[in-house]
């Protein structure tokens, strides 16, 4: 792939003590937490993630990985869905709560040299890592089209952000409460037809990303996917998070989470608990 999304290159991660400044529910079962995290805010690139130690002294010991959704000044925003013990604890963390995170981590989205028009396809929580990307693309004058899907209107995420920076936003809901009734992959299909695109970026449930990747490949457009894997260390040391690629096993935490769709060897079995989105 072409050049990298960053003016500067990815810096090495650090351990940063961060403070919750806001934490609210933004959709059914989904929260947006804002952390005062100057070091991470200054260094994080679109598509990278942070590995958060949500609580200490609990019976769950591992950190939890979350994409950085947006950066505002010295603050980072994370969109999270409550699915288990860690995210439940995160949802309970009020302003002032101090945690530590390791970040920024991973290989983020890449913006090919001279790309003029990009399609972002978000399925449910997949909107999380696409937020920073949409803003960065707009900043660089790349035309952005967004296809976002969710079970229902109330579950659509980052709608304002997308509508603010994108030239076109197409929505799809399973129940038809907003936009097209059906899957976002349907919307993607037609957008691939009637728009002149240089690159496709997608994140969401893995089966959905796989379909989008296939659609983009069929249309001859390069596609980047963001894959979730269970992660222990998050920094490349434990090999928990491997993704089979044409170049062999890669680590989602350092070689990913963003991969060139063409290089991914898709697996049948589900590798991580599916988001209920």
């Amino acid at each position, binding site marked *: 792939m072409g050049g990298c999304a960053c003016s500067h290159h990815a810096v*090495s*991660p*650090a*351990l940063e003590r961060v403070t919750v400044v806001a934490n609210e529910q933004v959709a059914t079962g989904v929260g947006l937490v804002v952390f005062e995290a100057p070091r991470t805010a200054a260094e994080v690139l679109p598509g990278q993630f942070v590995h958060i*130690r949500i609580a200490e002294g609990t*019976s*769950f*010991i*591992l*950190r939890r990985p979350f994409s950085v959704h947006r950066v505002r000044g010295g603050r980072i925003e994370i969109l999270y869905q409550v699915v288990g013990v860690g995210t439940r604890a995160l949802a309970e963390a009020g302003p002032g709560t101090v945690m530590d995170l*390791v970040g920024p981590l991973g290989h983020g989205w890449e913006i090919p040299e001279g790309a003029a028009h990009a399609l972002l396809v978000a399925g449910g929580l997949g909107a999380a890592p696409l937020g920073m990307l949409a803003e960065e693309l707009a900043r660089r004058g790349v035309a952005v089209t967004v296809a976002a899907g969710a079970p229902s209107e109330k579950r659509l995420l980052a709608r304002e952000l997308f509508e603010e920076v994108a030239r076109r936003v197409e929505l799809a809901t399973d129940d038809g409460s907003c936009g097209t009734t059906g899957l976002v992959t349907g919307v993607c299909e037609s957008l691939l037809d009637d728009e002149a695109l240089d690159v496709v970026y997608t994140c969401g449930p893995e089966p959905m990303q796989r379909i989008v990747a296939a659609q983009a490949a069929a249309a001859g457009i390069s596609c980047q996917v963001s894959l979730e*894997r*269970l992660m*222990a*260390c*998050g*920094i*490349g*040391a*434990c*090999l*928990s*998070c*491997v993704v089979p690629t044409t170049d062999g*096993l890669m680590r989602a935490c*350092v070689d990913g989470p963003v991969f060139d769709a063409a290089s991914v060897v898709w*697996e049948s*079995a589900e*590798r*991580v*608990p599916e988001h209920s989105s």
Partner: protein
Amino acid sequence: MTQSVDMSVTLAGLRLRSPVLTASGTFASGREFADFIDLERLGAVVTKGVSLEPWEGNRGPRIAETASGMLNSIGLQNPGVEAFCATDLVWLAEIEVPVIVNVSGHSADEYAAVIERLEREPGISAYEINISCPNVDAGGMAFGTACAPAERVTRACRSATSRPLIVKLSPNVTNITEIARAVESAGADAVSLINTLLGMAIDARTFRPRLARIVGGLSGPAVKPVALRMVWQVANAVDVPVIGMGGIADAEDAVEFMLAGATAVSVGTANFVDPTSAIRITDGLAEFCRARSIPRVAELTGALRT
């Protein structure tokens, strides 16, 4: 008190500047942790398992979180000894820290062959023979759960090197002291324990095992009581030094293992929870001794009052 503490320990002839090592497979070769800690303050870097040929490891999911612990079924994925020498060892050569290479194999000969290849390399302080990995079908734990194969592998490795030989024991046995004595008699210069406890996790919602390989190795604070007990039993059963590990997350844990008889300790899963763990524990250990006017950390070894 400002009086300083002698943190050095002697292990199988090696003089280490600290008793705190890294546990194999939780620290890669240290490179990923260089952003967080000064590797040169470690007693030694114990590398991930290295085999003769490249190993693919197991399918994912490879980990599952459990109460105060985690299961892993990585399966010793590694690029093989050649690639290890060409990359990890070259990188480690720049760092002022003893390197202990963790060795895996499908047969006694394979273990020995890995060592023979590594013998050609400088900058290796010792070998740790992993006869206790629960995550590979051929070999691995099979060698570590009975005396005869444990002895066989140890002999084969012993005859391949004069460098210090550490044999890593499995906790999944009825009597770990038997195995410890067997490998000691076969020429081990030290033993390290515990490797992971064989465990399993199930997702009640999907009716499926959480690990693709169904079973995996349990590590973390949950296993500490079992690890401490085995370190204490083994330290009382063999003359060679013991490297203790299993759930060490803070300096007090490290002290407990040394009191139980460990000459050095390894930090594993805690590296994932806090990448600075090994150094945090090293500093805490020094502070522990300082606060009690214990001049040499080595005095903690076996100091349990029973």
